[in-house]
């Protein structure tokens, strides 16, 4: 947090995307998603739908979750088509 004297006039924020400093992963209360790679068909729907950009994708390929930001909403797990009816994302109890 900076003091008001350091804030540019007009409350302009000069650093684009500075919200990344806020690690919203601490919001996860009860559940946490887990990726089951063998059931993943790489459709990337979880990447598109996640409201918190918490699904990492590199060079068009899904990677693991970004737990620094995942709020544990479960949307990705509900929408994941998985392979032959087996979900590639399951929600599990959060252990802190």
């Amino acid at each position, binding site marked *: *947090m*900076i003091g008001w004297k350091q*804030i540019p006039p007009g409350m302009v*924020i000069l*650093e*684009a*995307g*500075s*919200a*990344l*400093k*806020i*690690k*919203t992963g601490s*919001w996860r209360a009860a559940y946490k998603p887990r990726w089951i790679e063998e059931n993943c068909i790489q*459709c*990337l*729907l979880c*990447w*598109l*739908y*996640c*409201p*918190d*950009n*918490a699904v990492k*994708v590199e*060079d*068009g390929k899904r990677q693991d979750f*970004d737990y*620094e*930001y995942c*709020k*544990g*909403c*479960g*949307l990705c*797990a*509900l*929408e994941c088509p998985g392979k032959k009816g087996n979900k590639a994302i399951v929600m599990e109890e959060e252990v802190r």
Partner: protein
Amino acid sequence: MVTPLNLKELSKKELRFTAGHRLCAGCAAPTVVKMILLAACDYPVVVASSTGCLEVSSCISTYTAWKVPWIHSAFENAAATLSGVESMYKALKKQGKIDKEIKFIAICGDGGTYDIGLQSLSGAMERWHDMLYVCYNNEAYMNTGIQRSGATPTYADTTTCPAGSVIPGKPQPRKDLTKIMAAHGIPYVAQAAPSHWPDLMKKVRKALEIPGPKFMNIFTPCNRGWRTRTDDAILLSRLAVDTCFWPLYEVEKGVVRVTYKPKEKKPIEEFLKLQGRFRHLFEPGREQLISELQRMIDENWERLLKEEEIFASKEEEKEEVVK
């Protein structure tokens, strides 16, 4: 080169709305913003938002989730603010001080669009500013505690039209803002929903290619205000479309086209029963309220199909004349 609208290619693009925002877990607003900005990925954009959940939660103190130039305007005037910016851009372009092809997008809540911001929106459209105005429609004033708006559907429970023994939620019909915007005679107006993301992104792309004023109304589930689970934003969006509660269509140069017709129209109960804001409708003795809602939806859907039909037959007539 135009980036194709497939997820593999889009995932290689920079996300211009970052994580770390403070919208509720499972809120559909950031997903809708992600889809808009991905569809616009080939352009530099300037965005304006009126006060509301998206604005408040994306720029707390010195932390912003935006990676594009973004302006917070007051609740009632995002369209006026953005039309000023667009005019300045045009002037600078004329003077040769800027040569980039920049797109201007307003992303505002339904309260800021249907109600308090309607006159500034109407003015900006009528003055023909080159901008796309998007309403992320969560059907109430969510940021201040779920008050009813012009977009709140009939019989929904909100804090200012509480369902009880006096009224069964909001007694009035919702305002059909998409039609009001089409009546401005602007070149492009559309309704979209995030569950049907290729349709949504195609509409954003199309809108950005058309010069002049454009308007899109995007269905945006809000689990906090609708009293639903945190994981079902996309499911509810799909049900809204499949029950014809939220038809997907566009009006291009006055021609109506329904962009998605459910193979089997689902009964409205399927959409209602998952949401706490409609829970009272399932109490015994209130069956006729659901039939009433069903009738309103059916009438609206039939009217829309008829409107589409009128234009389709006119197009055929034109073709015959050409032959």
